[in-house]
């Protein structure tokens, strides 16, 4: 009797079979993989499974505890909805890439030792870059290459950290790491790059918008959330994470103001959201780690929904800049409705999903007397609401640009329907969410004080949005970010190389 199946095996098998099946059978295969994987997680018993001895080291492929089960099962739900959204895609290479990507990320979550974790982590990087390259445009191949290079560097940091850690007798088990030392610093750097913590974040906003229409949905979930998982596991209560997270929460929403490309707005918004999780991990109490996990779980749902909304618009109209969009609620009414649900959910409008998850980290900061953290997080929360408002207005309302369009194919609508339903059901019954968290949860989101506070800052954000609507008119520009350094550095390198060209003649 097999008591444990490493879910990545199901995905890798699926990726091997999927080129040989077509039509309905392919759809059935794609959807059954996350469904079966979720089922195996539900019935699996907690503990260590799949322990293999490898040249004297113990590799653990199946650490099943509340944390890995929580991330694993939310990953599966998200993968299911994203695969539904991508069912119409004919190019089988895209399906293979997304299955390998999801499988590797899920494998990393269940890995109990540093070596197998690192292996899955790298596989996820390499599989995901194909979701960018398969867009097949010149821009996407360049952006994909930059994405890959950044992740290779991140992987090297992580690998260097692991080697040092194991070499100095720290053991191969992936548990809480020492808070100081070179080994921990290197590992943390690897995690911070993948979690897109400024100034190491620019790869995200650079590369994701160049991915395929459906690839961006997968990308927006798995890389950063695996990194959040790794930090919950490895660095809970590390004080610097509080500072980095709070900066991140503000940085992302500030950058999103000037951005014209809708997908890039969501990317900066995602960076800001990850900031809340990083803060929660840094605060480090049981409730703090719960807050990080609950933010990760809920963000996976509503961010994917919002990405699906924009992807649907791009799929139907071929456009993705706010300055070229407008008035789409007339032609894409259902996409509009799901987009509004996602926007309200991420902003924390009661009774949707965000309301029951976003305030926990603020409560923890209050308990720990970190006033400035609260002020920065609420500043970020205003931006979390401002940007959905802006995109709802600029894309779906505003000036009717008479763009010919209709709602996307039925499978894309179903992808959004599933996630929108989760936003409502889990928001109304927060116990369902809290049951997935790593620690016991005694938290009541629906109090009068919380409702009043939320309505106050969200209401007045809406008011300022209405007053400053003109100032928010999208402009046809891009914004420089820290990727400037490596995008321009190559030109600098060529310049320097030319100056030393005379060396060729010496020999």
């Amino acid at each position, binding site marked *: 009797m097999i008591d444990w199946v490493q879910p990545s095996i199901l995905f890798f098998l699926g990726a091997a079979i999927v080129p040989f099946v077509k039509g309905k059978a392919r759809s059935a295969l794609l959807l059954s993989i996350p469904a079966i994987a979720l089922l195996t997680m539900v019935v699996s018993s907690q503990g260590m499974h799949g322990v293999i001895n490898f040249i004297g080291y113990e590799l653990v492929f199946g650490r099943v505890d509340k944390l890995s089960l929580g991330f694993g099962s939310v990953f599966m739900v998200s993968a299911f909805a994203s695969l539904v959204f991508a069912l119409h895609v004919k190019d089988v290479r895209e399906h293979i890439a997304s299955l390998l990507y999801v499988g590797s990320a899920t494998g990393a979550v269940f890995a109990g030792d540093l070596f197998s974790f690192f292996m899955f982590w790298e596989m996820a990087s390499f599989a995901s870059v194909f979701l960018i390259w398969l867009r097949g445009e010149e821009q996407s191949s360049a952006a994909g290459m930059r994405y890959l290079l950044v992740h290779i560097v991140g992987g090297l940091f992580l690998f260097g950290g692991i080697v040092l850690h194991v070499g100095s007798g720290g053991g191969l088990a992936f548990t809480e790491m020492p808070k100081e030392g070179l080994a921990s610093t290197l590992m943390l750097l690897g995690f911070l790059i993948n979690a897109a913590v400024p100034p190491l974040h620019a790869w995200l906003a650079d590369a994701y918008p160049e991915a395929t229409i459906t690839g961006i949905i997968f990308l927006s979930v798995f890389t950063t959330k695996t990194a959040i998982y790794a930090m919950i596991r490895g660095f809970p209560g590390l004080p610097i994470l509080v500072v980095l997270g709070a900066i991140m929460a503000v940085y992302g929403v500030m950058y999103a103001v000037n951005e014209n490309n809708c997908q890039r707005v969501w990317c900066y918004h995602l960076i800001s959201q990850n900031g809340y999780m990083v803060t929660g991990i840094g605060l480090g109490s049981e409730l703090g780690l719960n807050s990080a996990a609950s933010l990760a779980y809920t963000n996976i749902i509503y961010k994917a929904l919002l990405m699906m909304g924009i992807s649907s618009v791009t799929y139907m109209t071929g456009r993705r800049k706010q300055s070229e969009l407008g008035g789409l609620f007339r032609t894409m009414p259902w996409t509009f409705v799901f987009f509004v649900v996602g926007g309200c959910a991420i902003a924390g409008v009661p009774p949707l999903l965000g309301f029951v998850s976003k305030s926990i980290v603020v409560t923890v900061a209050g308990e720990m007397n970190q006033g400035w953290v609260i002020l920065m997080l609420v500043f970020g929360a205003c931006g979390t609401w401002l940007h959905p408002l802006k995109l709802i207005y600029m894309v779906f309302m505003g000036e009717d640009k008479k763009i010919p369009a209709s709602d996307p194919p039925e499978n894309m609508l179903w992808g959004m329907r599933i996630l929108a339903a989760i936003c409502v059901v889990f928001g109304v019954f927060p116990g369902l969410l809290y049951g997935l968290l790593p620690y016991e949860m005694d938290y009541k989101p629906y109090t009068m004080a919380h409702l*009043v506070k939320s309505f106050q*800052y969200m*209401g007045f954000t809406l008011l300022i949005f209405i007053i400053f609507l003109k100032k928010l008119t999208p402009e046809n520009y891009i914004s*420089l970010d820290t990727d400037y350094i490596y995008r321009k550095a190559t030109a600098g390198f060529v310049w320097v190389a030319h100056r030393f060209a005379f060396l060729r003649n010496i020999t």
Partner: protein
Amino acid sequence: MNLKETLIKYNDSPTFWKKSKKGLYIFLGITVVADFIVPHEHKIFFWDSIPGFWSMYGALSTFLMIVVSKAIGHAWLMKPEDYYD
């Protein structure tokens, strides 16, 4: 009536947005007034004793976010779209 027609009917009606705006102003007033009535159990920070604090903070945050981002963008960060090409 289907969704599309309903949405268009509300959007194109001359009074809907006016009424909605009025509704919003009343709602904003209520949230501030509610702060005087709803008890705050934990008074940790100075702002916990200021009724309507989060209204002011929300408005100020959003205002600063827009103005500062736009100012930095125009002065420094925003470049033509073919900048990297």
